[in-house]
């Protein structure tokens, strides 16, 4: 390759003459570098292959990078990886270009013009940290800690823990990310509340069991419910799905779009967008009616036989109905009540192994006891599902009845099956109801903790239990629970929780502050499920910025990509930017968001530069290596850590928030040490010098894979059960009722104000904007979205080899609908919702229902390319960005406050290509890499 000839190697020593001219961003500052080594242009090519992991999406496939004289010239999948098996998809491969993209930000930038003008001044790191710290300190001194807020999300940045903890350090409760309630939090959090176990998401690496290799793979039927691994995580779980299907595993795909996984499915259920709850209830009804459920598991391992108090909606404990009853189990394991088929009477139902149960509980029963009418939880579910005949589901959800029946028979007829629940439902008002339904189905089928199903517990979380399982809350693995003494532990008795909170509070007086931050977090009264990740409710944050009520967030530290492409109803956010006094960003390039909003941008590393540990593939963990490093870029945790340290200095050595507060490394040395430790290497140097010794880190299979943990007898002589209040799978998710009323188990010991009760089971929700609910025919199509394999979230729109293949978003539309509108294949169309209008190209396909259109998120960095006349430049987020159309107002998902990214109504009209949008391959030449001759640089911090 031509790039080799001009390679030089210099040490990076910056002069002080940098400030001043507004620099073109990606252009090397080589004039201001002092060469301390002679150039090595004539040196022979030195080639090495470095083990690393891709970070083109969150699955992080192991990869190998070829480096020639300090320049990465080739990327390949690592064939030793057990699931990806050498695969590497386009998102990973194209890092070869984006690493050296002319769009890279290599130095700290300070805004030099007005917001939106895209004019920047290069400043030193010291100046940049001083700028950020000064604005934060001033705002907090003047308005108090709640003036600060943080955010993350959007792809290509990794600061989830950092964003969560950064406001804690400043004593502010406000942080959000466009994902969270709209991506994964509902499924992740509900699985903890539902059975104290691992969730059903493939994309987030939760589902691993079905990708076991060789004879260890026991999967028979996999249901992809609103997931498309072949597109979203192409090389890892996409490859895994290809291997599964080749092996003969049957698949069912629920997706309005004929995705590649739907194409390959044995049964495809093209559900009307956002009506999945109706389809789920049809499955429940059919399974109940035809007695296809696993009776023993449902009776003894779920809470469906429990009698529910009609007043409290909670299961009745045995002692409430039988005052003299003495439970044979410890206080942390309450006895409930059921209707006993043996005695034909209401009876106490103590926790035990199924064989030891004194009762034979009815799953479905309604009747009187002591003058009050009770129903079992199963009966309540049955009645909820009762209207949902296959025919009714066909009418509402647009899926042929016989197809639904075929799918249910395949799913229930298997020895083992499992549902993998994708992101789709998170982006709708039914964000909590769909996971309740998906896990609910697997629970009544007994597809839990068995080889071959999706709800299994593995790794540390699946280790054979020795005690009654409990579930910690607040943060990942409940990390903030012990740290600050907040949050109850599910599975402890009320007395144990009280004593624990008291002791932690005495040990750490910050418990009060931590608890107050929970209470004051924006949007928490109504959407208490957000507590699980300590995040705020996004529309409420926007409202607070706009109105100052109940307090005004004023200084924003964003830790990732293009918020304008990722946030629902982007225009509503653009409108409040002027209300925000100071906005700090960090990313490897400037996006629409940075141009329109940011006052200061920290340059961060691309994945070829940043040390990290990958997400794991099965029982193996891999290194994301520091393969190269150019410019003054830093690892993602460092800017905030440095800013916090500077603020602390300014405040005379203390911070207004929680201690430890921010969790994130402050120097590359710390980053590297922590990576080395995770991979069980004595030091970073040893790790990278002898990578093969430490990578992958393999947990022996017999220590990693475990099954039927709930049946293991533990120290109280009982089967372990599950980490829930009842010690059973709570298919009737009783704790959601308590959550709504007080914030329990998250907001504890001091409670949050009550809101309307949350539904503990799957219930049908007709989308707010839909052909059924709309009172106008102005918007005749239901729009939904889903990824394409070219991009991950907001990333890679500046990757020339991706964009030449997919220059503009397809608007998938049925040919019959298109014909009525006079639209032909690849015509430009305008898509409008009640919030705005954007453009895309019509892709005519029978893969969508005539009433549905499908479109993926997009933004266009070419709109501010230097080749576009300055007066015509835009920030590239209004042209083709589906999030101009999406709906960020009520109704929200009740538990998580999720707004509506999918399943709202639009109109489609023939149109013209917007200005500035590139569609011809050659137009993308300005995105081709230019930074190959950038010197390799040392760590900044």
């Amino acid at each position, binding site marked *: 390759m031509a790039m080799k000839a001009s390679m030089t190697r210099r040490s990076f020593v910056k002069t002080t003459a940098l400030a001043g001219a507004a620099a073109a961003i990606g252009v090397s500052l080589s004039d201001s570098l002092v060469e301390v080594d002679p150039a090595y242009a004539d040196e022979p090519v030195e080639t090495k292959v470095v083990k690393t992991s891709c970070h083109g999406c969150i699955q992080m496939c192991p990869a190998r990078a070829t480096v020639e004289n300090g320049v990465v010239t080739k990327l390949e999948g690592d064939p030793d990886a057990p699931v990806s098996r050498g695969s590497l998809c386009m998102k990973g491969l194209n890092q070869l270009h984006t690493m050296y993209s002319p769009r890279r930000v290599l130095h700290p930038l300070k805004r030099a013009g007005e917001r939106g003008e895209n004019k920047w001044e290069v400043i030193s790191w010291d100046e940049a940290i001083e700028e950020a710290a000064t604005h934060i300190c001033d705002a907090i001194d003047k308005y108090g800690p709640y003036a600060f807020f943080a955010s993350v999300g959007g792809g290509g940045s990794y600061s989830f823990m950092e964003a969560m903890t950064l406001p804690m350090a400043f004593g502010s409760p406000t942080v959000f990310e466009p994902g969270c309630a709209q991506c994964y939090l509902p499924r992740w959090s509900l699985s903890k509340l539902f059975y104290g176990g691992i969730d059903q998401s493939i994309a987030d690496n939760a589902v691993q069991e079905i990708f076991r290799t060789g004879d260890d793979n026991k999967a028979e039927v996999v249901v992809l419910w609103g997931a498309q691994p072949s597109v979203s995580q192409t090389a890892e779980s*996409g490859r895994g799905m290809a291997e599964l299907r080749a092996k003969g595993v049957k698949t069912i795909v629920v997706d309005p779009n004929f995705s590649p996984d739907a194409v390959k499915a044995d049964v495809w259920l093209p559900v009307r967008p956002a009506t999945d709850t109706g389809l789920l209830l049809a499955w429940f009804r059919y399974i109940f009616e035809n007695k296809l459920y696993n009776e023993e598991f449902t009776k003894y391992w779920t809470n469906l036989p429990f009698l529910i108090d009609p007043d409290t909606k909670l299961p009745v404990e045995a002692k409430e109905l039988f005052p003299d009853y003495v439970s044979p189990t410890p206080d942390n394991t309450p006895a409930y009540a059921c209707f006993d088929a043996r005695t034909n009477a209401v009876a106490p139902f103590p926790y035990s192994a199924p064989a030891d149960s004194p009762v034979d509980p009815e799953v479905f029963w309604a009747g009187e006891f002591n003058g009050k009418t009770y129903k079992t939880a199963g009966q309540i579910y049955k009645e909820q599902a009762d209207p949902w005949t296959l025919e009714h589901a066909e009418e509402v959800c647009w899926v042929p009845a016989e197809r639904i029946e075929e799918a249910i028979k395949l799913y229930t007829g298997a020895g083992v099956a499992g549902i993998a629940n994708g992101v789709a439902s998170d982006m709708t008002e039914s964000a909590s109801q769909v996971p309740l339904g998906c896990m609910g189905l697997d629970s009544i089928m007994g597809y839990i903790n068995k080889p071959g199903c999706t709800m299994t517990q593995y790794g540390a979380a699946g280790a054979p239990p020795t005690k009654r399982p409990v579930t910690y809350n607040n943060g990942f693995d409940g990390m903030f629970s012990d740290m600050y003494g907040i949050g109850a532990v599910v599975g402890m008795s009320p007395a144990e929780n009280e004593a624990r909170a008291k002791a932690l509070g005495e040990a750490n007086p910050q418990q009060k502050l931590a608890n107050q931050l929970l209470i004051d977090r924006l949007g928490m009264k109504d959407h208490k499920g957000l507590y699980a990740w300590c995040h705020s409710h996004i529309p409420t944050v926007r409202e607070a910025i706009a109105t100052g009520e109940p307090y005004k967030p004023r200084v924003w530290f964003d830790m990732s990509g293009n918020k304008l492409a990722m946030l629902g109803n982007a225009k509503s956010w653009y409108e409040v930017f002027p209300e925000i006094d100071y906005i700090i960003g960090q990313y490897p390039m400037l996006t629409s968001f940075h141009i329109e909003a940011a006052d200061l941008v920290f340059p961060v590393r691309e994945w070829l530069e940043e040390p990290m540990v990958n997400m794991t593939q099965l029982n193996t963990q891999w290194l994301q290596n520091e393969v190269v490093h150019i410019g003054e870029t830093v690892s993602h945790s460092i800017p905030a850590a440095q800013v916090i340290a500077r603020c602390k200095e300014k405040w005379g050595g203390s911070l207004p928030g929680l201690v430890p507060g921010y969790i994130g490394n402050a120097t590359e040395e710390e980053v590297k040490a922590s990576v080395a430790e995770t991979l069980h290497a004595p030091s970073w140097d040893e790790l990278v010098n002898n990578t093969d010794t430490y990578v992958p880190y393999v947990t022996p299979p017999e220590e990693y894979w475990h099954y039927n943990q709930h049946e293991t007898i533990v120290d109280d002589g009982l089967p372990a059960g599950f980490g829930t209040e009842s010690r059973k799978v709570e298919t009737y998710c009783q704790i959601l009722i308590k959550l709504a009323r007080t914030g329990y188990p998250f907001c504890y010991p001091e409670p949050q104000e009550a809101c309307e009760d949350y539904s503990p089971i799957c219930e049908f929700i007709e989308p707010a904007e839909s052909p059924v609910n709309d009172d106008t025919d102005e918007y005749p199509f239901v729009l939904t979205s889903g990824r394409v394999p070219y991009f991950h979230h907001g990333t890679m729109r500046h990757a020339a080899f991706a964009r030449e293949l997919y220059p503009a978003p397809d608007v998938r539309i049925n040919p019959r609908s298109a014909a009525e509108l006079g639209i032909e294949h690849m015509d430009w169309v305008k898509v409008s919702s009640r919030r705005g209008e954007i453009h895309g190209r019509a892709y005519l396909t*029978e893969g969508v229902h005539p009433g549905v259109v499908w479109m993926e998120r997009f933004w266009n960095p070419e709109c501010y390319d230097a080749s576009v006349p300055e007066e015509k430049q835009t920030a590239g987020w209004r042209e083709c960005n589906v999030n101009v159309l999406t709906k960020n107002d009520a109704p929200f998902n009740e538990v998580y406050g999720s707004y509506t990214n999918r399943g709202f109504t639009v109109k489609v009209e023939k149109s013209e290509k917007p200005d500035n949008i590139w569609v011809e391959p050659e137009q993308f030449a300005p995105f081709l890499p230019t930074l190959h001759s950038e010197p390799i640089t040392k760590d900044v911090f």
Partner: protein
Amino acid sequence: MRNCLVIDLDRCSGCDSCIVACKLENNIDLGNYWNQVIAVGPTGTHPDIEQYWLPVQCQQCENAACVHVCPTGASYRDEKTGVVLIDKAKCIGCQYCMMACPYGVRSFNQKEKVVEKCTLCSHRTADGEGVPACVHNCCCGARLYGDLDDPSSDVAKAVAAASPDAVHHLPDPGSAKPATVYLLSPKTAAWKELV
């Protein structure tokens, strides 16, 4: 010796990663492609539809028209590997071969004024060890490389294991005898005779 690709369309999910793997490996210009992936379908009427993806690159024809028409011998069959290649030093850019190729898989390099096409990554494979970049990185394990005449090769084994009704070649109106094999079982979709 028939070194070529065998592509399992039951596995291929149309992710287009092979296109990019090829372009990065072979340093191909914007707008040029040595392999492309065609979505065949969906055919039928919603929701009773089917689809497959067809990756298309040099088919390594036994009777290669491109070699026959080349006036300079630039298009040739490599004796050692049996692979059809282009000697860029001999190519005069007349593009006869592009017209002769029944599958449209050759492209003209505007900068170098020569014709190019898939070499089966000969720089990786000529020594008999490596596989093409598209095969190595394929996200579905759908692409295989090897010698169809060697029963122990990945490609020969895959063809042997496939049901006869799942073994396809691109249409061959001119008796070019394309060596490349596509595996597509009727259960996934009916094979369409695309030209």
